[in-house]
């Protein structure tokens, strides 16, 4: 359900910012910019302003090294004393989470690079210089991470930082941070993405090396775009591995953050000091469907009014982020996770050549209307763990144009594990077509062929089902036919889907968790959170689905929920929000 489809009137604000002193140091969500205030004030300020259990501290490379070969870790400036920060956190009974940027960081000047390394501005896929507007209205320009000097300096920095951690007995967790923006038309975009001259030169060297090793050259724009993606991922992994090895015992993992208000569309709006708060609310929810942690730290406090802040607190800080931070240490934690019925492998974007994503064949636009935010778009390099196979309440979508060897094998393994897989064969390589035919033949699988708006092949193996369709033909259909097509296709699968008739302008988000020992009547607890970022009062009725019982109404703010037999009557004032827990049984 994107904004244009919802027919919302965007709430655009244009006012002069009046920043509070703390806004610069505490941009929200438990983040603390230690370099923006005197070390002598750290304790008092943290005591006064830091509410949650965690203090999220992004490490500011340029603050610790102006020259790249000399570093200041508590040597000269007291504000570089990270050990002191950890001691204060301990005194305040808080947990410090250090974030180490592994890509340009949109909340830091020069994307976090020391001044002397900020040489070649990064350029996005459209050819626009990469930048983000910070909460105080300043422009943070991003510089290329594909410059070998940047990588060498990063290596020195992580080495020195890790040494300092070890020397000073810092025992806090370090997480790698990858930064993304979210565009409602194009999905999540990494700030690592670069098409500057430095990137193109290093990519040319990569192609040359590849040609010498494998003897092949990219054929066509799409293949070149895929190779650029592959090359970008290779360099990303270099930065990641470097940091992981430097910090070894302190290293906790990788966090992918999506910074709300940092897409190119937002940047142009924000250059004129305009903000669209309803859109930010929508983007925050969509970011989670891209498996990225949404953050509002780039937004000024005045635009983070009730709904956006509540979304951030309810859905991100006490749920989504908690889950990410626990994933490595507490697998059994029963926090709510986003409810996912549809899992996609990310498509390929190339503004200048072709677009091969899930908007083109109409499935994502359909789901955005019918089952908003119950999908998850995985990055192309995502590799499931063994225990992730065999999910029965999920459909998996793969796009022919962006399949590689690894994804192809994951797709077949899913099918063989009894999962339901849909493959759009648009631009599916000849090699994969052949492999599929061999796979069907070797396993004596019967291929049923159906013609409904496009050619569809249906293959079953035990519980597993593989549906292969030609997405290219779907492009010719109008919106109504396309929606009908996807409705019919999805109905052929048995899923515990809940369709709600919610008025335009109200956003809702489903989460789920297993029932605990006190809730054995239920199999699963689903939490429905409703938000009204519009300026209008909304009154509507929700039909409680079959085999589902209302357990409780929570966090009602400017909202009322009145239970009726099999229904809930909901009244939401502007900026209102409320959640309901529903127990689900077979």
């Amino acid at each position, binding site marked *: 359900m994107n904004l244009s489809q919802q027919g919302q009137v965007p709430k*655009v604000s244009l006012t002069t910012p009046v920043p509070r002193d703390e806004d610069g140091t505490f941009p929200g969500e438990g983040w603390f910019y230690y370099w923006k205030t005197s070390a002598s004030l750290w304790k008092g300020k943290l005591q006064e302003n830091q509410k949650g259990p965690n203090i999220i501290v992004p490490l500011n490379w340029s603050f610790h090294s102006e020259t790249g070969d000399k570093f200041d870790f508590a040597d000269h400036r007291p504000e570089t004393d990270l050990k002191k920060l950890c001691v204060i956190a301990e005194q305040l009974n808080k947990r410090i989470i250090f974030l180490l940027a592994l890509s340009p960081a949109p909340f830091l000047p020069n994307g976090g690079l020391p001044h002397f390394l900020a040489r070649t501005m990064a350029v996005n896929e459209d050819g626009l*210089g990469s930048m983000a507007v910070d909460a105080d209205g300043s422009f943070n320009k991003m510089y290329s991470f594909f410059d070998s000097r940047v990588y060498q300096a990063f290596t020195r920095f992580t080495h020195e930082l890790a040494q300092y951690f070890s020397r000073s007995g810092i025992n806090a967790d370090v997480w790698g941070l990858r930064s993304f923006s979210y565009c409602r038309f194009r999905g999540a975009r990494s700030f690592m993405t670069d098409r500057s001259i430095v990137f193109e030169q290093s990519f040319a060297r990569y192609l040359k090396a590849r040609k010498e090793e494998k003897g092949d050259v990219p054929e066509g724009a799409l293949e070149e775009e895929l190779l650029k993606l592959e090359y970008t991922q290779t360099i990303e992994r270099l930065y990641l591995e470097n940091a992981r090895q430097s910090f070894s015992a302190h290293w906790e993992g990788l966090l992918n953050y999506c910074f709300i208000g940092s897409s190119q569309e937002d940047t142009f709006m924000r*250059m004129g000091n305009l903000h669209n708060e309803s859109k930010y609310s929508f983007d925050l929810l969509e970011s989670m469907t891209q498996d990225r942690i949404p953050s509002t730290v780039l937004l000024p406090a005045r635009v983070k009014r009730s709904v956006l802040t509540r979304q951030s607190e309810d859905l991100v800080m006490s749920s989504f982020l908690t889950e990410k931070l626990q994933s490595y240490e507490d697998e059994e934690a029963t926090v709510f996770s986003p409810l996912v019925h549809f899992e996609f492998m990310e498509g390929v974007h190339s*503004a200048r050549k072709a677009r091969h994503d899930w908007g083109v064949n109409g499935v994502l636009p359909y789901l955005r209307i019918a089952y908003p935010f119950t999908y998850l778009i995985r990055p192309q390099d995502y590799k499931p763990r063994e225990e992730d196979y065999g999910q029965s309440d999920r459909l998996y979508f793969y796009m022919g144009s962006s399949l590689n060897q690894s994804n192809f094998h994951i797709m077949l393994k899913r099918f063989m594990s009894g999962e339901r897989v849909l493959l759009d064969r648009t631009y599916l390589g000849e090699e994969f077509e052949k492999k599929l035919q061999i796979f069907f033949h070797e396993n004596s699988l019967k291929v049923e062929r159906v013609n409904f708006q496009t050619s569809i092949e249906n293959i079953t193996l035990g519980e597993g089902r593989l549906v292969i369709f030609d997405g290219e033909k779907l492009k010719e259909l109008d919106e109504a036919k396309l929606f009908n097509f996807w409705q019919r296709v999805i109905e052929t699968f048995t899923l515990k889907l809940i369709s709600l008739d919610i008025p335009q302008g109200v956003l809702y988000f489903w989460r789920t968790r297993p029932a605990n020992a006190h809730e054995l009547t239920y199999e699963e607890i689903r939490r429905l959170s409703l938000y009204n970022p519009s300026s209008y009062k909304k009154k509507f009725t929700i039909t409680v689905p079959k085999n589902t019982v209302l357990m409780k109404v929570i966090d009602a703010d400017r909202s009322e929920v009145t239970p009726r037999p099999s229904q809930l009557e909901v009244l939401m004032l502007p900026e209102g929000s409320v959640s309901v827990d529903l127990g689900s049984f077979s």
Partner: protein
Amino acid sequence: MMKNLFLIYGHNPQLNYTIYGVFEPHGGFDTEALASFFQEERGHQVNPSSLPYISGILSFEELKNHAFELCRERRCDRIVLLSLDDYNQALEENSSPEEFFKHLSLNGESLENLGEEGSKGLLGKLFR
């Protein structure tokens, strides 16, 4: 003080001229308003798959005509058309938003709105 509107455009053989963004130092357009203006006021078929950008403008002359109408709608004194290179150069060479806007206003191709009142079109209704 002169009220400037800035338009960033690019050109490539497949998408012809593309408008990447239109903004003022204190104001601008959201994508819906810009797309509606092109679709409804200018009769330009907006390609949904190119959003948030407006693509498919066939010539620089056509781009200038659209730009001039945008300028009239917003009752700006002038609109400055800046290529991707102009825009990127302004970003590279300037650190503060003030310097950036000053740089933009001194570069690119400028179209003056010579005193004519803005129209009563879509953007006028939305933004006044």
